């Protein structure tokens, strides 16, 4: 557990520790106050992660169903939504690292996250493009290994985000 005074400079009304034990009063927040920005960025970051995982779920569902003709049109839906979730996770995650001074984009756990994002991006891109091709009727479903690697990278990303090794 570590933190620096600069965090307080960013968000003086934020409290460390068990919130049930905290008794700090804060002034009413305006729409552009910093904590609202932090909350908004975190919400969009996590929402992007859920969208990304949801589309991985669609890829798995299509794979397990054998990607037959009747389900192939789902590939057209998953392709742009996977991209949107993937970009949202990265953009809002890096924005958070700049917005909060105790996080630095070169922190170990953030660098690990970026590497894992690149791995899931590479293999998720294969999946989304592959299922888009399935929807267009020009190819079979992507390989099982691509599903496993993309999902494994996302699982490790979640572990990295929860445990924040080195933070």
């Amino acid at each position, binding site marked *: 557990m570590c933190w620096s005074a600069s965090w307080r400079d960013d968000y003086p009304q934020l409290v460390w520790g068990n919130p049930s034990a905290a008794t700090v009063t804060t002034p009413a927040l305006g729409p552009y106050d910093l904590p609202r920005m932090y*909350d*908004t960025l975190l*919400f969009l970051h996590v929402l992007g992660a859920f969208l990304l995982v*949801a*589309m991985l*779920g669609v890829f798995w569902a299509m794979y397990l169903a054998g990607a037959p003709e*009747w389900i192939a049109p*789902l590939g057209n839906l998953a392709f742009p939504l996977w991209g949107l979730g993937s970009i949202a996770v990265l953009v809002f995650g890096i924005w958070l690292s700049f917005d909060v001074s105790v996080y630095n984009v070169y922190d170990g756990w953030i660098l690990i996250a970026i590497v894992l994002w690149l791995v899931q991006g590479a293999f998720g891109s294969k999946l989304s493009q592959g299922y888009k091709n399935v929807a267009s009727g020009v190819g079979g479903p992507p390989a099982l290994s691509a599903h496993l690697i993309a999902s494994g990278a996302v699982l490790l990303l*979640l572990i990295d985000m929860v445990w924040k090794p080195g933070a």
Partner: protein
Amino acid sequence: MTFLLIRPDSWNFPLFVHVAGAMVVTAAVVAAIGALVLAWRATGEHGAALTRFAFRTLLFAGIPAWFVMRIGAEWIYSKEYSGDNDPSWVGIGYAIAEPSGLLILIATILTYLGARRLRSGGGGGGMAKVATVLATIAVAFFVVAIWAMTTKPS
């Protein structure tokens, strides 16, 4: 009030179970909605296959993942709070968890009945449409829950 929390390490695994369960249940319900929407436009055996696919997705992924999410939630709650003085975002989580589980359960039953009727050629598309609406409401609940869990209003 917004709290920034450095968690004790012992909270991490329960939190991981909760979030992972929430992600999988969301993924399963979204996949089922996708299949059900396709089923609206499909005809004959394709419609039945899509509805059956949605049913299996909800039954084998959605419902188990909901339980994982809910068990993780109770686990992290027991570590973090004592039962009194709960902040409102925890209340929002509770208010959303059970109704969303109920919606998923009803949607699963409806897709099962719809798939059976479609297979036997006796209709059933209406049930699948109702299931689609219920599952979509569940996803809307999930978005509200994500908002509450990340912004932690008062």
